[in-house]
């Protein structure tokens, strides 16, 4: 059992205390931190769940693996940045193995995929616990100081996190819209048979897209490691929240991903000031369910499910 | 006008920039049989979707017994007395033929025909225990007609009931429908001319989403323009 509920990003670990006037700015930046992380984690899910129709319950473990990669590299080498470079690689390796060993054999059997990926998630969690031992792993941020933003004083590392997340997302948008691989992905997603007909290797495209999503989730784990409690069981909360992002935002567009992240991340951040984190989570869940009832295809999407 | 069951007035549908249907009228009287024909892509299935309330028209209205049915949940429409046979045979493959008919009867507000009678009507009397998924294609189509009958409809809408059938099966289906004529209204969407000829009823010809002709089938059949459309000359 996970000993304590560990909410993503800003809910715990050195909360930034708002003071009168800068309350709004601080809340906004806290929300932005969470939204950034959710977008990165949600991206991989939007690819696998939304577009390939694969329910991967081990997606949260990509985040965990990324965070552990940072911890591991930092503990032997001392460099956070090297660890952060290792995080997406670790996520990609795990994702690639998972796709190759299990998921590609189960494309036509959704319930089997759910069970098998959940099994993998348990194996990974226990594997990490047996390897690294019990208890939370310390990860120190590369920059300790704060930055004076005129309205408020804010931890510099969080601003770096937001910047890296934004740049990554921009990179992904460019990759999908400008490169031939991006074109392959879009073609496969729109019409699989047609894609096969024009000579695209759909199997390979799926595998690469899946691995890519895992790498981005690993990066998210690496980024969040200094802010979160790094535990083998940390993934499940990211998993649940990222699924909300995809469900609320709808699948098939970056716009949906952003909308979903803003909805889930924004609501969570705002509520976290008023009430206890788990109640905030429950309200976000209910809000997400109601949103889906009202807009079955997502806030931002016309594509059918 | 009291015996009017279904009335579509000035129905139009727009999908984005495409005008799929334009200014279509259709009146179905109680216990009347009529056909909607047209070449592929003429908008037949779309029109049928509008008539069953599954698609909301962008203009015009569809009234069943004087009531607007657009956007009602499917099961409510069924309970009003509109039965529908889908284009792709959609039976419940993991249930037996008998259970398929039972499920259909249970859905009806007041089923009348017993399952045994339904089995005979659709010529599946000896296949009652067979899993519906294992039936031949034509038998599935008949089973589906049987399921539509089980809910004791006022109106039966058939979407290409003979799709994929052999000529013999097609004629048998036409006979089946002629036997049922007079019990309730039937609207059949078809592009198989032989089938419509066998039914010989009021016919509406669609072409590119508009009404091309309408009237008794023998008038339609001899119409120059209809022939042109069917032979692809227009």
């Amino acid at each position, binding site marked *: 059992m996970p000993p304590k509920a560990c909410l993503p990003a800003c809910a715990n670990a050195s909360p930034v205390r708002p003071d009168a006037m800068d309350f709004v700015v601080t809340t906004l930046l806290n929300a932005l931190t969470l939204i950034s992380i959710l977008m990165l984690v949600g991206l991989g899910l939007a690819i696998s769940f939304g577009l390939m129709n694969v329910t991967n319950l081990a997606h949260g473990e990509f985040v965990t693996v990324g965070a552990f990669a940072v911890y591991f590299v930092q503990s032997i080498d001392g460099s956070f940045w090297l660890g952060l470079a290792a995080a997406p690689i670790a996520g990609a390796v795990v994702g690639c193995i998972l796709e190759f060993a299990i998921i590609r054999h189960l494309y036509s059997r959704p319930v089997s995929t759910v069970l*098998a990926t959940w099994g993998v998630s348990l194996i990974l969690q226990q594997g990490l616990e047996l390897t690294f031992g019990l208890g939370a792993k310390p990860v120190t941020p590369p920059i300790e100081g704060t930055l004076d933003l005129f309205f408020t004083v804010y931890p510099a590392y969080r601003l770096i996190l937001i910047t890296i997340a934004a740049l990554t997302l921009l990179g992904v948008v460019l990759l999908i819209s400008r490169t031939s691989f991006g074109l392959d992905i879009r073609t496969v997603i729109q019409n699989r048979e047609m894609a096969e007909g024009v000579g695209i290797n759909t199997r390979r495209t799926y595998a690469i897209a899946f691995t890519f999503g895992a790498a981005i989730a690993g990066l998210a784990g690496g980024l969040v490691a200094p802010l979160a409690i790094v535990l083998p069981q940390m993934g499940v909360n990211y998993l649940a929240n990222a699924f909300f992002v995809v469900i609320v935002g709808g699948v098939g567009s970056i716009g949906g991903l952003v909308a979903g992240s803003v909805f889930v991340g924004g609501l969570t951040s705002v509520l976290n000031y008023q009430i206890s984190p788990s109640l905030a989570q429950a309200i976000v*869940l209910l809000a997400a369910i*109601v949103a889906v009832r009202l807009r079955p295809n997502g806030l931002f999407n016309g594509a059918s499910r | 006008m009291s015996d009017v069951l279904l009335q579509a007035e000035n129905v139009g549908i727009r999908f984005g920039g495409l005008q799929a249907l334009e200014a279509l009228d259709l009146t179905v009287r109680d216990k009347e049989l009529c056909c909607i024909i047209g070449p592929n892509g003429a908008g037949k299935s779309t029109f049928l979707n509008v008539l069953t309330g599954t698609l909301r028209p962008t203009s015009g209205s569809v009234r069943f017994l004087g009531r607007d049915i657009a956007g009602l949940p499917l099961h409510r429409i069924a309970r009003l007395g509109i039965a529908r046979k889908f284009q792709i045979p959609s039976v419940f493959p993991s249930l037996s033929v008998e259970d398929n008919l039972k499920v259909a009867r249970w859905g009806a507000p007041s089923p009348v025909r017993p399952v045994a009678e339904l089995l005979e009507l659709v010529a599946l009397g000896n296949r009652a225990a067979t899993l519906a998924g294992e039936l031949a294609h034509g038998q599935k189509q008949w089973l589906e007609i049987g399921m539509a009958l089980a809910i004791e409809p006022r109106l039966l809408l058939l979407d290409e009931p003979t799709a994929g059938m052999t000529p013999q099966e097609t004629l048998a289906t036409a006979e089946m429908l002629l036997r049922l004529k007079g019990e309730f209204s039937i609207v059949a969407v078809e592009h198989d001319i032989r089938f419509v000829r066998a039914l010989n009823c009021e016919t509406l010809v669609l072409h590119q989403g508009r009404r091309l002709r309408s009237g008794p089938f023998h008038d339609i059949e001899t119409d120059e323009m209809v022939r042109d459309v069917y032979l692809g000359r227009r």
Partner: protein
Amino acid sequence: MIAGDRNWLLIFAACVALATIYPLIADGYQLTVIRDALIFGLFAASLDFFWGRTGILCFGHAAFFGIGGYIMALVTLNDAIPFASLLGIMGAVAGAAVVAAIIGYFLFFGGIRGSYFTIVTLAMGVICQQAAVSWSSVTGGDSGLIGIPPIEFDVGGLHVDLSQDLPSYIFVAAIVAVAVLTLWSISRGRWGTVLTAIQDNEVRAAALGHNAPLRLLVTFVLSAAIAGLAGALYVCMAGLVAPDLSGLLLSTEVIVWVAVGGRGTLLGPVLGAIFIQRAQQTISSFNPSLWPLLLGCVFVFVVIVFILPDGILSIYARLKVLFKGRRRAQ
């Protein structure tokens, strides 16, 4: 599908017979072990009633078990409430049903099925566990609530006191038998047949006049209510309630019980629960962190070996096929 009503009833009768003679050969401790396993078996049957008949997987079913458990604990620990045991059980069943009704309403009528449903219920389980941990003024936080009294009530002049091993075993076994039989007769009759039809082709079922979302909702609520009942029984037997009871691990374990025992058979999941818990106790006695690891392997194994999820009850048929294949190969 349930293969042959007669066979099912025969196996059911054999199980009942076994459960009846078991007290004659077992000591008090063994009785309590089986009693607790049977409660989890009831929980597994409740999941199977929904998953087996609708094909929709609920990944947070322990939430209902936990809700039932906590309500039972809170009612029976409050001295001001009369007839605490009976009211507690009713409250547990109603509480689980209400939560299922609220969540189910939005999901089923919102057109949410399949994987989406699985995910949302997973999140529901996570949140329930979090709530149990952090709402400590009511739930006792991480350590839960202890000292829950055994079930005790009067019915028609008969005083029922379940503080002893044998009466509590009989009580639980009887409830499980009645519940499984009831669920089975519901699921093989008209209700279950229509559910199968909905699983096959929901649009078609709706076009025949069936209100599919409502039927799914009622099935889900009934399933949750029974899970709540199991939770209520469990905390009274164990004497304590803790956040694990609504946790994700239990939610996944129950899925394994159903999958291994045989989805859609109702009886199989009960047996699956008993046998797997037996295995769990043995394995956990070596190393407690080994169990989740093994559970993960079981999940992968279940998917790979039981490609068609018929579980334990289909092993015989599988072996037959296997040996036939061998013989042909020779």
